[in-house]
């Protein structure tokens, strides 16, 4: 411990220089940990968007449902989807099962017809577990969206909610009467009159131009679907268990394919990879800056203490112990730097979040969002470990230089 004590005293001897070095470490910690908190917010937002956008935590589908297109409606559906949903609702890990039908066809206002991508949902269950009402709220702000409401739970109601772009291209608004056209499971053409009860804004123009939502009863009649369902979105009681539950339910339902949300949300995975690349590069640069700055400080400190090192070596200190002395100095710089960095991060995070700053809309979306830098202890620990390792590496070269000093020359050093 004598070496640790010596190291600490040496750092305190040059207070100003130590303070400057600590500032570099603190700045590195601050930048990386705030970036980590921002990334966590982004990932959380994307994950919530994917899960509450309709995927749920797990999706149950027919085998091969993800391969190729359907030649006709519900070709790759779960034939007894409703029964399967009822079975899954009995599972203790499952909070709710939301059956869905995905279909396509033409939507006609009379003079004009536009191709659509439709989703049929349970009007009663969907608002409880998915973010459909948020899209509706945003859609109500669009032209013709005034008076938007969610689908009626009455099975006899024939209603539709249109994407804002789709409504615009048809000149439709809330209250308009349109005709849905699609093919039944047997391949026969079918049509159904529906009333527009709302507009939805999904945040992506390409989606808004094509999507519509109807109740399951409407789609069942249009497609002659019977109990068949395209997918079952499963909401788990414990979202953290998604991977384990996916394996368990897959084993429980051998005639189906069970996929977790993160395998289906390709946008989430792409953004995550992009962020990892950006912040990984930024991290490397910051670690390099810390490395060079602290190595410079420690080297200066070694050059000023050449005679002192000569005396210590004359007293019997081994070269390896001098190396260890410099490692202790690096260790203390890392430790204090990370501790101060953590305090600065928590303060700045609280300050920034309190400002309720509005961030611009991410690429491909139409909505901005409020900055909410997350508390990410795992990231803080990782940054502290990374900085500690950087400091130890930066102390290596000055330590080696000190260890290689010839004693007689060091004692003559002025």
């Amino acid at each position: 411990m004598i070496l640790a004590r010596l190291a600490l005293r040496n750092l305190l001897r040059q207070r100003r220089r130590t303070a400057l070095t600590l500032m570099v470490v603190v700045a590195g910690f601050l930048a990386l940990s705030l970036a980590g908190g921002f990334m966590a917010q982004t990932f959380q937002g994307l994950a919530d968007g994917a899960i509450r956008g309709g995927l749920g935590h797990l999706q149950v589908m027919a085998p091969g449902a993800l391969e190729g297109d359907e030649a006709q409606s519900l070709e790759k559906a779960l034939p007894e989807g409703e029964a399967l949903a009822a079975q899954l609702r009995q599972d203790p890990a499952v909070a709710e099962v939301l059956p869905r039908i995905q279909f396509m066809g033409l939507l006609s206002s009379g003079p004009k017809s536009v191709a659509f991508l439709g989703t049929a949902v349970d009007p009663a269950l969907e608002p409880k577990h998915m973010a459909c009402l948020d899209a509706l709220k945003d859609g109500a702000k669009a032209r013709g969206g005034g008076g938007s409401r969610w689908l009626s739970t009455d099975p006899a109601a024939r209603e539709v909610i249109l994407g804002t772009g789709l409504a615009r291209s048809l000149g439709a608004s809330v209250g308009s009467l349109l005709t849905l056209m699609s093919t039944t499971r047997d391949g026969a053409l079918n049509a159904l009159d529906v009333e527009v009860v709302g507009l939805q804004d999904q945040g992506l123009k390409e989606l808004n131009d094509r999507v519509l939502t109807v109740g399951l009863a409407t789609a069942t009649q249009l497609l002659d679907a019977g109990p068949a369902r395209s997918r079952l979105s499963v909401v788990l009681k414990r979202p953290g268990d998604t991977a384990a539950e996916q394996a368990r339910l897959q084993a429980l339902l051998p005639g189906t394919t069970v996929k977790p949300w993160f395998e289906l949300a390709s946008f989430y995975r792409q953004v995550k990879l992009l962020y990892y690349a950006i912040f990984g590069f930024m991290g490397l640069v910051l670690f390099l800056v810390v490395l060079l700055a602290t190595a410079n400080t420690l080297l200066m400190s070694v050059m000023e203490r050449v005679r002192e090192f000569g005396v210590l070596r004359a007293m019997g200190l081994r070269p390896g112990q001098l190396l260890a002395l410099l490692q202790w100095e690096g260790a203390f710089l890392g430790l204090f730097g990370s501790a101060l960095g953590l305090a600065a991060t928590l303060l700045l995070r609280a300050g920034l979040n309190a400002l309720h700053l509005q961030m611009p809309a991410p690429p491909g979306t139409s909505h901005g969002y409020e900055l909410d830098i997350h508390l990410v202890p795992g990231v803080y620990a990782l940054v502290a470990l990374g900085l500690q390792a950087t400091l130890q590496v930066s102390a290596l070269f000055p330590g080696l230089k000190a260890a290689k000093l010839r004693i007689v020359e060091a004692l003559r050093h002025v």
Partner: protein
Amino acid sequence: MLEFREVTRAYELGGERAGVFGVSLAVPKGCLAVLAGPSGSGKTTLLQLAGLLDQPDGGAVLLDGQEVSSLSERERCGLRLSRLGFVFQAFNLVPVLTALENAMLPLQLQGLPEDEARRRAEAALKRVGLSDRLHHRPGQLSGGQQQRAAIARALAPDPLLVLADEPTASLDHAHGGPLMDLMAELAAERGATFLVASHDPAVIARADHVFRLADGRLIEEEHR
């Protein structure tokens, strides 16, 4: 106790050959011996060889009968730590440590428990008259006090041999004389050998043995 046998250590200094050449001498145990001579005569070179800080080009250095000049770096470190003490002209106390911590340093490096190291360091500092300056840092001590603290640091591990390079050169006469008296007393009292390099007549006058050097060769021995 300390013996040089035909020791040669040569190096270039300002384009000229310097060092020591074929020096043989023996320093008995428990005495105050002085390597005397003008600047460049080879005093410090011999002291460094005796202190295992350097290795001879030829000949042998024996410490307590053991040939030590050809030991490995690790073995020499171990010997320096346990059997040798050093006192330097410029005191060279570790500036960030107090007098007590400086004296404890070699003991702690030996691996002694802190309590034991503290006890022995306090005793050494008390012996050199610094019991009221234990917690002062070098910057808070006078030159004479710093040199006494350096002697306490050298003596605390109970070494066989204490090597002092011009220990009074940075002190005025009023402090240099008592310091040499102290070294002579400690040599007699502890049985440790003090080998001092100096050209100060006052230091030479207090020595039991004087080895006079000139141009890297032993020219005269005086045993009192």
